[in-house]
């Protein structure tokens, strides 16, 4: 109410200004070519569209893709940005976010929109760019983050933009970086800060560098980190995956407002649990115990935020169960029986590719006559 009153007098001024800028931009072909998409995106944030329903139904829900993406952004900020600022210091987190956004959205996406003459810039880029730093180690250099963001957005756009990307762009860029700079991605893990922050730690976090995440530690000497430290995020890991508690809570919120389909996290986490229980029973101490599996690595982040990326999953609800279970199965297999310590990323990427055949199989069985 307060905000509404405050905004009332400035509305007409803004409205007129935007109208004028819009008409200037559209009147000049060259200006439109350069800035049309940028203006469209900015305008779309501030004002409602003017399109009206021309075919039945003549009323529409006031829920659009913008709000959908907005909810994911809010969840990610609460789920990893805020905890990461506490654990690793704001300088590390904010600089990475800025680099990722500026390179990913404002340079690559805008340039693409200009070159490919797209008429708008998609908000999906923000989600990808917010995920890129989250899955890199806390001490990865800024240029690596920038390169990752650029690769993610470029890759998505080459495939045809939001709605056509076969695999999750953020995960793809992480794979790309792993292939190109393997050394940088296994080092650079930092011991998270705990306790009351003072000005110094709030800015820089702790200076202690470690090279072992709980999963690699288990691989090398069979040591199992405490579940509480994994849950609260005091164990080391990639920048955004450590505070599982916040990720789970925000993930549940996304499920509640129906942005995330509950079948995916449930089937993913459930199958990881079931399969690792099976392996633990048959093979004993050689494989990681079930709860440790669920709480370690990027699994929680992956299960709630990446496997659920709606475009890269299957459309049918039943196929979603298969998809989630497949992710879980591959994750456990990769973690337990290969030299890789973390498998969640590859599992999701692989299932992204398999999603299309699963979908057509399910559709065919369902509508068989």
């Amino acid at each position, binding site marked *: 109410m307060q905000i509404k009153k405050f905004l009332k007098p400035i509305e007409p001024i803004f*409205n007129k200004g935007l109208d004028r800028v819009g008409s200037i931009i559209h009147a000049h072909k060259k200006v439109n070519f350069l800035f049309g998409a940028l203006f469209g995106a900015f305008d779309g944030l501030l004002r*409602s569209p003017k399109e*009206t329903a021309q075919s039945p139904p*003549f*009323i529409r829900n*006031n829920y659009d893709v913008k709000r959908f993406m907005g909810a994911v952004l809010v969840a990610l900020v609460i789920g990893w940005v805020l905890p990461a600022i506490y654990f690793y210091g704001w300088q590390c987190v904010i600089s990475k976010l800025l680099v990722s956004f500026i390179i990913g959205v404002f340079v690559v996406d805008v340039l693409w929109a200009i070159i490919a003459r797209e008429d708008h810039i998609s908000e999906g880029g923000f989600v990808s760019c917010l995920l890129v730093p989250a899955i890199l180690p806390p001490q990865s250099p800024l240029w690596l983050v920038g390169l990752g963001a650029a690769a993610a957005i470029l890759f998505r756009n080459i495939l045809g933009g939001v*709605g056509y990307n076969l695999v999750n762009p953020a995960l793809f860029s992480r794979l790309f970086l792993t292939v190109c700079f393997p050394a940088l991605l296994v080092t650079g893990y930092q011991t998270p800060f705990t306790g009351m922050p003072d000005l110094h730690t709030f800015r820089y976090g702790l200076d202690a560098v470690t090279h072992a995440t709980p999963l690699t530690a288990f691989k090398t000497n069979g040591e199992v980190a405490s579940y509480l430290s994994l849950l609260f995020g005091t164990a080391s890991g990639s920048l955004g995956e450590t505070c599982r508690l916040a990720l789970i809570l925000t993930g549940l919120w996304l499920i509640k407002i129906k942005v995330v389909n509950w079948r995916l996290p449930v089937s993913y986490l459930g199958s990881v649990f079931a399969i690792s229980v099976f392996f633990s029973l048959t093979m004993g101490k050689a494989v990681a115990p079930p709860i440790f599996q669920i709480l370690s690595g990027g699994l929680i982040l992956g299960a709630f935020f990446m496997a659920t990326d709606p475009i890269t999953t299957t459309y049918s609800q039943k196929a979603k169960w298969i998809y989630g279970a497949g992710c879980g199965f591959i994750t456990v297999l990769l973690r337990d029986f290969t030299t890789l310590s973390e498998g969640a990323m590859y599992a999701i990427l692989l299932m992204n590719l398999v999603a299309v055949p699963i979908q057509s199989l399910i559709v065919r069985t369902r509508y068989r006559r």
Partner: protein
Amino acid sequence: MLRKKEIPGFKGGFNLLDTYPLRFFNIIEKVSSDTTPGIFEFPPATQKIEHVVVNLCPTEPWALPNWAIFGHRVNVFFNKLKEIRDRFFPAVQYCIALNNKDIETIAAARNFAGSEERVRVFPLDAKYPQDDSVVLSKVVLGVDINFGQEAMSRGIFIMDAQTVSAIYDSCISGNKVDSRFIAVSGTGLKENELVQVQLGTPVEKVLSDRVIEGGKYRVFLNGPLRGKEITDLSYRVNWTINNIVVLREQDYKVMFPLFKSEELMFTTNVHGEVRRCVYCNFCDNICPVDLEPALYYHSYQRGERHKARLYNLERCIECGLCSFVCPSKLELLKIIRECK
């Protein structure tokens, strides 16, 4: 009697009554046509009637509310129903579909049913499109009728409150019924009102003095979801028109729409830009007959309309909910109609 667990229903659907709360003013004034008014006739039976379904569960907030007919005397209404039953349908199954929040009417209906086997009372969740003939006969009788098929051809006669009272007045009391109640509502009007209109009155005359001045508006007969738009306002009201909805044409941009959702909601605006399908599953979660509308969109987009028909397309009841929820603002219903 039904126990709580056994409340029948259907998957999907959407509670419009909570989303668009409308209040009607209790002013019922009479609008007369300038020509000789049409007369209500008892719909002739083309088939032997086996089931009578009394639909007292409107699910669209702009539909004519039951109290307009009952006038707060529910028992009088059920007495009329009893006489109709005794006179015209003595040996058929009776089903009464009710809104499960409407306790008073449920009690009266149970009282009417008494201990008789052939009258059953169904308190239902009032989510749209519960009152659609396909969904209603599926939920209440377990009978599948196809979209576009007359329920009558399967021996089912569906009537709403207004039809019951008209049958009583014309066939039992012997009066001529030449007018009906119409709910007139929407953001294009000064007030939401219930109007008693003589059959044959032009819509123009019903709306005169009621629409807001100095704004664009569009007129829909029988609701914006399933109804049709009319641009020629000399259209004459007939018995099938239950309500007239007049919506403000929101065809200009507004600043900060997030703070104004209430005022923008009930207009013709689409509230978003058209995007590609994002596989959000909203459309198949809401579909009352369990279809997957995004599949039609994908087939259509690839230019394979014939493929869309493989996915049970003929079962779609054209309720429009999929287009209503789609956050990418895809014209799913239009695509479905084109593919059919």
